[in-house]
């Protein structure tokens, strides 16, 4: 323990701190980009799943398959698939872009499920009433479902974002220089692995914990009285 503490000042040199912070920035960039794309795509997937028109059947089928499959494949396999398929197709994409694509894919698949759960939390009777009043499908979605569903969707989406922060750690296996990879580099430079990984763990904690608290706050705030708090979800894997 004393040896570890003695090593601390040697680890926290100016350049190491800058290195750790920039790589934490990459982790955050992956998370935020994944969430933004995932929210948009997840909404579209969940909305398309609600359509009933016959000519949209193939689209519906593809989207359902997409959302169900990528929630049943480990993130690391998705990551490798994106990497090798892009290589096989002859694109020489930077590793960060590959990780970004993989993160966006799983975020869309998982958030589509979050949206679906939110949409189905709206009482059926209201939708039937809107249909009886000859509301169009889009109008039902935007003036009946969304205004009520977002209270359910928002906390769950934040909870997923927390799990996404941790999942981006797997991008280090591809060689993307994010927080985990920075830890590996520092260990290779000869710093004690317990100390370095301890620092990296604290880094993840600092990113994930406030977000988790924010999600719990949103949930308390948005849901009515007598609501039982949601259980923690491990999210993607």
């Amino acid at each position, binding site marked *: 323990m004393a040896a570890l503490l003695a090593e601390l000042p040697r680890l926290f040199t100016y350049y190491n701190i800058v290195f750790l912070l920039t790589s934490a920035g990459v982790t955050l960039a992956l998370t935020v980009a994944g969430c933004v794309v995932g929210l948009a795509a997840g909404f579209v997937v969940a909305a398309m799943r609600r359509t009933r028109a016959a000519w949209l059947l193939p689209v519906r089928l593809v989207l359902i398959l997409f959302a169900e499959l990528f929630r049943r494949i480990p993130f690391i396999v998705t990551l490798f698939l994106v990497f090798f398929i892009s290589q096989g197709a002859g694109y020489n994409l930077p590793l960060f872009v590959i990780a970004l694509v993989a993160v966006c894919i799983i975020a869309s698949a998982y958030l589509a499920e979050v949206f679906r759960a939110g949409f189905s939390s709206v009482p059926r009777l209201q939708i039937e009433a809107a249909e009886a009043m000859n509301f169009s499908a889009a109008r039902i979605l935007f003036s009946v479902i969304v205004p009520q569903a977002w209270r359910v969707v928002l906390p769950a989406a934040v909870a997923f974002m927390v799990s996404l922060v941790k999942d981006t*750690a797997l991008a280090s296996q591809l060689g993307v220089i994010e927080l985990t990879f920075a830890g590996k580099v520092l260990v290779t430079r000869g710093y*004690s692995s317990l100390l370095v*990984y301890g620092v990296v763990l604290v880094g993840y904690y600092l990113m994930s914990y406030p977000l*988790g608290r924010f999600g719990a706050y949103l949930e308390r705030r948005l849901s009515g009285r007598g609501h039982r708090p949601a259980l923690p979800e*491990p999210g993607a894997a």
Partner: protein
Amino acid sequence: MNYTFQFGEVLKHSPELMRASLTTLEIAFAAFWGGCLLGIAGAMGKVYGNKAVVLVVRIYVGFFTNTPSLIQIFVLFYALPDYGIMMSPLTASIIGLTLNAGAYLTEIMRAGVISVRRNEMEAAEALGMSGLQSFWYVILPHIARTIYAPLSNMFIWLVLGSSIAGLFGVSELTGTAIDIGASTFRTIEVFLIAGGIYVMLTVVASVTLYLVGLWCFRVRARIF
């Protein structure tokens, strides 16, 4: 895209992939049951323990749910040997995943424990139910309704999460896929097949869990 798929090269290795799927399930089962024990202990500590115990459980849950399981296993596998604690990749990943699952399961089990209300126990007693009867007819239905779905989610998550072990050289599904990809250079095919096997494993697990829930606990878990 002028890539010719050659699944034949990979299919020659299908016995290995089958064995690897079994290892994946073994890791998931080991971590699940270990995590359940930890979770029950943690939940009991959180509900009935004194302040010190509650604090310890909170730190445990907070730490393991807010940090990546990959780095937790890094610490077990790469950092602990400096202090004389050596373990095989398989042991390290099972311990890591168990600790991780235990943290989530603590919260799940806690929800189950607090879902049983004292009044109901008293009512069961007033009806003259024996201990076993009140457990079977009063406590279990409550707990099952609250925690069965999250428990089955957790198991599915562990089937997928065991893929991390492959990164440490365990020959479970992902690890074997990496090895086969390295020896045959058919990386796209092998990961497509591995992904397909994961989908099959989790669908079978979901359906089984749904049926078990329906028949044993009268709970309707979700499949899709």
